[in-house]
């Protein structure tokens, strides 16, 4: 920047390559960053309100529609919460394995989409994967091939990729045959190879040197990488059952966002998602994923959000590897679901969506009618941490031009793969520097 800088405003009114509608606004003045807003302006859709009065059996189909990218996450968290209310536990056996398997498919589909189509273009200087494909066709094609394998897995078990129809409270409407799953081995083996190549490739990308210190929150599941269940833990001592969520977390409504902001009552903002999962659970990754992470130079924890692309690639290795192991061990169960009888109670469920922890709570009546619903998606939990992240990134990058800084800020947001459609019940980014009065004013 030339001349003494007064106010600079860095803003993007419609963030690209994120899911849903959000904007960014950063204001800089002589004292540094004075304001950071991640504004989510996606119009609200009121899921929690219209779930009231519905039947408990309808919840997985309805909540799937919150997000077209991670419907399985919504189906899994909601099914677990309803089962919890009804006193049913599905913590092992073939139904749980099938749930993990279809969830692995969603992680593969969603992470492939983010790594190759939304995030990688930032590092290589393209506006989209389609533009990137003109110079790097093979790279984009392998990303699409891996994504397709994840989608094929979701579609085989779930019936289709988007808004699967086969998930129900208690399990599934129909369990796949062994032969149906074995047909997925070839594409998943290929996906695992591509995932390993993706770890190697992403680890060579240029990363700004940033280490951030948000509290990491993720599920913890003994001996298994957290996906479909677990206690809620953090790197600062939190260790609770999902049923204790309200005692430790609070959601707030802020004016600039249609997504509620969640925070820890005692310590404020926190981060959920791949960085948190990896940092808390790298020890229980499958050996292949652990080796790939070590070879890529990742330690046991990762605090550089720009490196989340490498962490997602490591999780891709894990998801493909675990899916193959689950298919190998699969025997078609006699019953595809356990019976769930409604009762008047409150239930809680938390699972790891690709973007982070997804918490649901339902109060149901004796006849199974939903009396009250609460849904806390990962992006609304991360909003505050993303804003703090933006602030830290801007403070380290003041020498950049407005154009470069805007791009850096957008990248800082995309690092977290925010899903705005999910969180709205939520995103908008602008950078406001009190800029040199002589400079062009983007407004």
């Amino acid at each position, binding site marked *: 920047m030339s001349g003494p800088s007064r106010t600079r405003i860095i803003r993007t009114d419609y963030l690209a*390559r994120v899911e849903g509608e959000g904007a960014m606004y950063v204001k800089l003045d002589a004292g540094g960053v004075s304001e950071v807003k991640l504004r989510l302006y*996606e119009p609200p859709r009121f899921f929690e309100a219209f779930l009231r009065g519905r039947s408990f059996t309808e919840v997985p*189909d309805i909540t799937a529609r919150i997000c077209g990218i991670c*419907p399985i996450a919504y189906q899994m968290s909601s099914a677990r919460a309803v089962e919890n209310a009804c006193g049913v536990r599905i913590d092992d056996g073939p139904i749980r394995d099938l749930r993990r398997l279809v969830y692995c498919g969603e992680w593969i589909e969603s992470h492939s989409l983010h790594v190759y189509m*939304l995030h990688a273009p930032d590092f290589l200087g393209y506006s989209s994967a*389609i533009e990137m494909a003109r110079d790097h066709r093979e790279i984009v*094609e392998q990303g699409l091939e891996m994504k397709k394998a994840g989608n094929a897995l979701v579609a085989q078990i779930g019936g289709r990729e988007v808004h699967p129809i086969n998930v129900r409270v208690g399990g599934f*409407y129909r369990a796949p045959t062994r032969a149906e799953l074995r047909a997925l081995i070839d594409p998943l083996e290929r996906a695992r190879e591509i995932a390993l190549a993706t770890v190697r490739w992403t680890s060579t990308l240029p990363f700004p040197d940033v280490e951030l210190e948000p509290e990491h929150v993720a599920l913890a599941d003994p001996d298994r990488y957290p996906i479909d269940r677990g206690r809620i833990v953090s790197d600062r001592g939190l260790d609770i059952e999902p049923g204790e969520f309200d005692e430790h977390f609070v959601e707030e409504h802020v004016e600039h966002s249609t997504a509620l902001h969640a925070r820890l009552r005692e310590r404020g903002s926190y981060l959920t998602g791949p960085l948190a999962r990896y940092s808390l659970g790298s020890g229980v990754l499958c050996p292949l994923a652990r080796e790939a992470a070590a070879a890529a130079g990742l330690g046991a924890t990762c605090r550089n959000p720009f490196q989340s692309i490498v962490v997602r690639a490591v999780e891709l290795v894990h998801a493909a590897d675990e899916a193959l192991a689950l298919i190998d061990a699969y025997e078609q169960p006699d019953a*595809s679901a356990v019976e769930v009888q409604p009762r008047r109670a409150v239930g809680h469920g938390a699972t790891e969506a690709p973007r982070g922890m997804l918490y649901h709570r339902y109060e149901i009546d004796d006849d199974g009618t939903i009396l009250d619903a609460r849904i806390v998606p990962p992006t609304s939990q991360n909003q505050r941490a993303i804003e703090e992240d933006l602030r830290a990134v801007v403070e380290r990058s003041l020498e950049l031009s407005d154009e470069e800084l805007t791009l850096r800020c957008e990248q800082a947001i995309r690092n977290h793969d925010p899903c705005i459609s999910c969180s709205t019940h939520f995103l908008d980014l602008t950078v406001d520097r009190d800029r040199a009065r002589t400079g062009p004013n983007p407004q």
Partner: protein
Amino acid sequence: MDDRIKKTLAVWKFASCDGCQLSVLDLEDELLALAEQLEIAYFIEASSTAVAGPYDVSLVEGSITTLHDVERIRAIRASSRTLITIGACATAGGIQALRNFADVEEFTRVVYASPDYISTLATSTPISTHVMVDFELNGCPINKHQLLEVISAHLNRRRPRVRAHSVCVECKRRGTVCVMVARGTACLGPVTHAGCGAICPAYNRGCYGCYGPKETPNTASLDAWSGLEQRDLVRVYRTFNAGADAFKQASEGHERT
């Protein structure tokens, strides 16, 4: 093909889950070929480059729920030669049209601690309520292969081969035994628009109507056969296509009785 003579495609989003526009990116085998055939000029979820209109084909996802969006869809219509709505939100108002049967202020209070910060319309309406639509593709979510057919038909100036018959026909073609006849499972297949490939009955469950009403649906006859109670009949028609005329009339009829 020379960039200057490629037709342009734009993808727009209103209130929705993003699942239907994601279907474009889910065309893993066709996406790069599609991008060679036409210029993807505006698709903010996939690209940070936005080429100014007018556009040859606009795909519109989502329903209209804010005053700002009413203005936005008019501007999009004005800059689009062909406008195609994709999915139940854009063609019928989506699941968020459940507010049309309720008090939206009450809804806002249930979800948001400070309702004053929220500006929204009392209704969720399909795109066709606001502007002329050239083609509506049903489904929650849409079928990506049908989407490809619709895009290619419009590029080639022919009618899309998208059948308006019921899901029942798809079950017969797939060879699925009727779940209603054989097992007594309630099923909306007889009144629901084809397009999904009759997935649900193939997975041992009844159709739940996510593709909306077929042409000339006889909901009254089906409901008499279904064995469901009135309350459940209201629920089955009030999901992702609750605002579609035939389903709306059916649910309101059952609510009155």
